[in-house]
């Protein structure tokens, strides 16, 4: 089995980076944390297959579970991105609101 964990993780990190783009700085620490955890899981999974504790069938089944774990992690990153977008949008609205208030005071 030709499986380079570090290469897979680097590819995943770059995929996440492409998706979140503008919010990368805010989600970088979390994304790295997720990938470090994934690395440990995949290393354990490979170890269990190599020492025969996992059959090929179960190994493949666990690998497919990894897709679900990645999906969960991407949902967590999506929440952070949405929170940042919400905060930015409302900050912009606040500025507009303040400008309108100033306009009223001037008109009065």
């Amino acid at each position, binding site marked *: 089995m030709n499986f380079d964990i570090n290469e897979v993780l680097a590819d995943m990190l770059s995929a996440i980076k492409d998706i979140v783009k503008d919010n990368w700085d805010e989600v970088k620490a979390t994304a790295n944390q997720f990938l470090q955890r994934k690395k440990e899981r995949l290393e354990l999974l490979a170890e*269990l297959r190599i020492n025969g504790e996992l059959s090929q069938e179960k190994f493949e089944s666990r690998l497919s579970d990894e897709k*679900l*774990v990645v999906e969960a992690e991407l949902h967590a*990153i999506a929440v952070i991105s949405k*929170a940042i*977008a919400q905060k930015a949008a409302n900050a912009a*609205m606040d500025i507009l609101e303040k400008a309108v208030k100033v306009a009223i005071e001037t*008109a009065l």
Partner: protein
Amino acid sequence: MKQQVYFYSKRIIISVILISIIALNSCKVTFIPSYDADISEQIDNTAKAVDKFYLSMLETTSDENDGRAYEKFSEQYVNIEVELNSLLNKNKIRPLNENSTRICEITIQLLEKYKQEHKDDNTLSDGLVKLNRKTFCDLFYAMQVAEKGKEIINNPPK
């Protein structure tokens, strides 16, 4: 006459501005629900219960001589499922909360799968106990990151 026109124009301008303020106030953008400290605490407690479940299994039992027969752990599986179902319902009823809801669904889906595996094999090797523990630890971490992420709306990360 001129004074009357000026008076009415000013009133119209002020009315438009006041309506704009009211519109702006009711025009807050919402993409996600606000942070819920109770849910965050329940995630933490459920994560600890699952961690304790697998650590105890590893420390106090062995897969030899039916030491990890499914029946010995069925009640603990039920307790964990009850907590997870409660978390799922609390997440589901909150509007705009599909991300946290999906993380919870995935966690339940994998718990059911690993429980069924335990039931079918009527045992669980040390390696699988460690792998299951790690998987759930990481899923609860994602769940907690999602809930804590909602705090950003009010408090930017430092």
